[in-house]
């Protein structure tokens, strides 16, 4: 019984970490249909900014994180406006090659500028402690991740489905020519959406850093996990990504409690089963 509740709690927490890291990609890859393998690199940039601001400059976590996200979003906007926009019309392989190349450049740049060591984000005292749940304790930081994850899911889903910007975005992705002739500023929409996706990646880098510590190879190391979440969740479905992240998080955590000798077998077996069962996404028939 105790093990079961442990699995549920740790699984939910881990699933939310997966979701927070993956949600940015579900925007750029899922909504914009741009094969963005540099997602991990943006997450790393966000995390590094937060780490440097809080540790070297001793800024408050609550000030440093929004600033780090802003910086990542700006980097995303600049890259989108200068280079990435030329890739939207290219083949998927070109997008893969370019963005993986960009990832290597950012890895090497991080290595050269900051060094190969692991970077820690200085958390405020309110987040470093543990919360007593009665029968066990839980890191306070995980509660923040769960809360922010839910807020991001809700905010992103509402923006896409209920706002004018969301309509523009869907129109621009589905039929750019028609959208443009209807007077929708598709360049602005694309740039802003990509920047938002990059900033969300940065948020994932910051909030996920407790579980996936930041170092130069961060950008590649966790990319597979993120891609699995988005693939199982379904292209462009933020609710699907959330659902996939939590289910996969529960499965991974259960296998750690019950069958850790099997490694990550169950995680990937579950991915295969889900993709066979619902190839278009866990929530789509």
């Amino acid at each position, binding site marked *: 019984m*105790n093990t079961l509740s442990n699995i549920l709690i740790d699984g939910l927490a881990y699933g939310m970490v997966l979701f927070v890291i993956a949600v940015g990609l579900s925007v750029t890859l899922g909504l914009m249909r741009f094969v963005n393998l540099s997602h991990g690199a943006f997450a790393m940039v966000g995390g590094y900014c937060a780490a440097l601001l809080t540790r070297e400059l001793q800024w408050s976590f609550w000030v440093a994180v929004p600033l780090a996200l802003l910086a990542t979003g700006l980097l995303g906007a600049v890259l989108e406006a200068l280079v990435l926009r030329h890739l939207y019309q290219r083949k998927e392989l070109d997008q893969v090659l370019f963005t993986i190349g960009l990832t290597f450049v950012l890895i090497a740049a991080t290595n050269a500028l900051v060094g190969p060591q692991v970077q820690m984000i200085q958390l405020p005292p309110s987040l470093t402690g543990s919360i007593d749940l009665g029968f066990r304790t839980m890191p306070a930081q995980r509660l923040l991740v769960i809360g922010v994850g839910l807020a991001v899911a809700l905010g992103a889903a509402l923006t896409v489905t209920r706002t004018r910007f969301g309509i523009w975005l869907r129109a621009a992705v589905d039929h750019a020519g028609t959208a443009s002739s209807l007077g929708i500023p598709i360049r602005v929409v694309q740039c802003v959406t990509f920047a938002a996706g990059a900033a969300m990646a940065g948020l994932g880098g910051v909030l996920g850093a407790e579980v996936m510590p930041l170092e130069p190879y961060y950008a590649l190391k966790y990319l597979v996990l993120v891609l699995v979440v988005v693939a199982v969740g379904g292209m462009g479905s933020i609710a699907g990504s959330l659902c996939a992240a939590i289910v996969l998080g529960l499965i991974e955590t259960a296998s750690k409690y019950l069958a850790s000798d099997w490694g990550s077998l169950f995680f990937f077996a579950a991915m295969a089963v889900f993709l066979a069962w619902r190839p278009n996404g866990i929530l789509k028939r």
Partner: protein
Amino acid sequence: MSISRRVLCSAAMALSVLSATGAHAQDQAIKVGIIGPFSGPFAHYGTLFKAGAEAYVASQGGKLAGKSVEFIYRDTGGPNPAQTRVLAQELIVKDKVDYLGGFVFTPNALAVAPLIQQSQTPTVIFNAATSSITEKSEYFIRSSYTLWQVTVPLAQWAAKQGLKKVVTAVTDYGPGLDAEAAFKSEFAKQGGTVVETIRMPIATTDFGPFAQRIRASGAQAVYTFLPGGPPNLGFVKAYNENGLAKAGIQFLGTAETDEFDLQKFGDSALGLTTAFHYSGAHDSPQNKAFVAALKKQDPSAVANYASVGAWDGMYVIHKMIEATGGKKDGAKALAAARELQWESPRGPVRIDSRSRHITQNVYLRKVEKSGGILVNKEIQSFGPQVDFGLTP
């Protein structure tokens, strides 16, 4: 006219080349090939090898036993035995190196054993820590440590502290299993019980579930082994955040509080107990000299097991050059190396003449804050330890 000028030119060039090789023959540099990761996620090992080795030569006035030394660095990336073999072959056959050094990963070291055996090239392992490596060729000498060497005294100490029940939590790959076997067998010999052996998948990022399992096992302490870098940090965080430290479950580790990443742990590392052969904070004039020489060579280099492994490895090579007078004589060099005994930055050490592995003190350390930075403070020496992992 033009033809004769060309002839003149080429003659002059040939002469200059000849004289250059002549000069080279007079002062024949000793060539040392260093094989390690100089790119990719493990590149910092290569950087530390380079800094440690070059700092040693610089500390000897730039020459070893009157000979200048030429380092040739070769990059293996990560664990890559096939490529390592090719690189070593090139170094031995084409570059004609006198000595080989380096090696972070066990499979890479094992891959060169037949080559160095055949070419009689003395090879000093600066890091790779699986016991069996030195048995694969009699030209291997090791200046690092083995997991058995540091774990056995730790298990003995744990039993002496009155700990009866310990859980092991190791990363599920070669060295982790080595560590688990070492702790389990020695702790049982001392009358303790390992209540559960947890093996954590190598790709683990969230260590929370394992922390809960450790707690649920009812053990008084956890013995752990993790590969360097992010997993260390993740495990220590999970250990603290899940209240294991507060519940009084003692942390027993080895290389987990490596100086390279230690500052990044923050205060969560305070009080962690480890047994290891080298601490950057070891209090001796030799260590102070080592740290100073290292900083002079490369201000960003960290005094840790990798850089001290390279430094002491170069000491061994220095003595082999001395014994052979700079000539290529593998057997004579090895005979000298087997007798070595000296005061290293880590304390008194010697090369075990049978295993060619370094016999050294293992220390019990606790992470403390000293002068604003985290250090591994040595609180007890277990005395000289051999490699317990070898088949007798």
